[in-house]
């Protein structure tokens, strides 16, 4: 795949940029901009090929089923899943985690068991496990990272116990932008007889992910952080585990036989997709994946790492600024979270907003992590391959005036 793509052409694939030429969008970790082709694919389906997938026996419905299942296959290929049936479509990563925590825990969790959850986790990969643990009389143990966000294999090893059923941590922190070595962590979990769940919400959009090579048991991610619309998410799970897990929701589509008092559930993946499916969303995700493949991760990663390192270096150089996580700009994958001494993140974001710059202020749905780091809240700038150096320059120039705007001499 060619490493050379014209950034101006790429930006034309995102009408948001054309419509808002003065805006600098640096909040892609919250949600990416939409690839035009993805939204068009959904619109094309709804306007010209619309029928209920998996139900009708007429041609249009069969075609809808085929388009929907083709999107599943593309998603499976994208993360190198062995079987398309290992891809369950959900609404978003949060729903994937809820499905998993509910269904998997009722299969494997017993009273007195333990779940290890990384302290860096987004609330959506933390609260469902806490709820499940409470329901089954199990406990959640937090696995703590060091002050730069780094998890060592030794620290996991030290926590693993015979009753540890599940270990979960993100592949990419949404606060630090640091990639975690989940291949090693999955191996350690497996050697202990525990299952390993990875949060892929921030990794899948930015790097090639191979679930078989990583040997994770489950991986959850969201379409809206990878150029597709809101409302489509993914749960990947190993077939041998998903087969044994009970359905999460019941209703239409997910049954083979229902009599007055008996039900036989469908095979994978339909067992976990009750009700009429979000075919438009899945088709849009498939189109977004086609676009990723056409750009290629070689290009995407080299562009994003160059832009991120540039942004991180500039921020590190500003007086009274500190960067959360690694002090090495190369360890920040698209994400730089920072603090300005004496200036509250909400004031930073309000001032940047006046300069037409969109960044995120707050706790980024990671309260326990912020408590662990001893800060109340922080400011996060996050980018994607479609951003430009000029946009980062505008961010830096606005940031460099903030302390003065807030009444500091310098």
């Amino acid at each position, binding site marked *: 795949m060619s490493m050379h793509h014209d950034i101006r052409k790429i930006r034309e694939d995102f009408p948001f940029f054309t419509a808002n030429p003065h805006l600098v969008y640096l909040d892609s970790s919250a949600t990416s901009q939409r690839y035009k082709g993805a939204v068009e694919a959904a619109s094309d389906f709804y306007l010209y090929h619309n029928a209920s997938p998996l139900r009708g026996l007429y041609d249009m419905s069969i075609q809808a089923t085929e388009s929907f299942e083709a999107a599943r296959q593309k998603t499976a290929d994208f993360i190198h899943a062995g079987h398309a049936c290992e891809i369950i479509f959900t609404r978003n990563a949060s729903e994937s985690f809820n499905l998993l925590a509910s269904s998997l825990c009722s299969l494997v969790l017993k009273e007195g068991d333990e779940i290890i959850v990384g302290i860096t986790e987004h609330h959506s990969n933390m609260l469902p496990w806490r709820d499940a643990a409470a329901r089954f009389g199990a406990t959640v143990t937090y696995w703590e990272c060091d002050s730069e966000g780094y998890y060592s294999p030794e620290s996991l090893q030290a926590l693993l116990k015979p009753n540890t059923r599940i270990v979960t941590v993100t592949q990419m922190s949404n606060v630090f932008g640091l990639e975690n070595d989940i291949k090693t962590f999955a191996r350690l979990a497996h050697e202990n007889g525990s299952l390993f769940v990875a949060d892929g919400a921030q990794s899948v959009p930015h790097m090639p992910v191979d679930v078989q090579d990583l040997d994770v048991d489950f991986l959850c991610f969201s379409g809206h952080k990878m150029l597709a619309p809101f409302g489509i998410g993914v749960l990947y799970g190993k077939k041998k585990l998903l087969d044994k897990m009970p359905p999460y929701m019941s209703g239409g589509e997910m049954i083979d036989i229902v009599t007055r008092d008996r039900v036989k559930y469908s095979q994978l993946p339909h067992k976990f997709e009750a009700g009429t499916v979000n075919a438009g969303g899945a088709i849009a995700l498939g189109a977004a994946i086609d676009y990723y493949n056409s750009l290629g991760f070689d290009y995407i990663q080299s562009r994003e790492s160059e832009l991120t390192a540039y942004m991180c270096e500039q921020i590190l150089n500003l007086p009274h600024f500190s960067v959360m996580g690694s002090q090495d700009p190369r360890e920040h994958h698209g994400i730089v979270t920072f603090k300005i001494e004496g200036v509250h993140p909400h004031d930073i974001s309000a001032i940047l907003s*006046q300069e037409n710059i969109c960044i995120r202020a707050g706790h980024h749905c990671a309260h326990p992590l912020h408590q662990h780091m001893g800060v109340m809240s922080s400011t996060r700038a996050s980018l994607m391959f479609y951003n430009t150096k000029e946009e980062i320059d505008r961010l830096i120039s606005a940031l460099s*005036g903030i302390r003065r705007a807030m*009444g500091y001499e310098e």
Partner: protein
Amino acid sequence: MNNTFYSEILTEHNLHPFHKHDIKDPNMVLEGVNPSCGDDIILQLHVDEAGIITDGGYVGDGCAISQASADMMLDLVIGRSKEEALHLSDIFMRMIKDPDSLSEDEMDELEESSSLQNIAHMPSRVKCAVLGWHTMEEMFKGEDEEE
């Protein structure tokens, strides 16, 4: 940088707050939080038998708008009766929510607090600006309920 709402008055109250400290013997204390932003103040007042606010202070953490607004509010209400304070609170809330309903005299009554009028155009910051005032109202309301 064209800052329409981070005025000098505001940044001054934020950087050098006059009332951001614990007071000696408060007889009314209430915590006010703004969960979406994480603004958090603990408002402390001393109200004497005649219903006069004789002393006030606050401690906490939050954006400049929430902190400065609380500081300016205390400037205004210390030395006044509860009724007067609630009257000012009513004007302040109207200034933020329905600025057109304010007369010039009412605006003058707010003194420095009137510098926050532009917040009315910033829906995402309204909660920050009213946090101190809202907490004071809750405090007096809670007292009525107890009586």
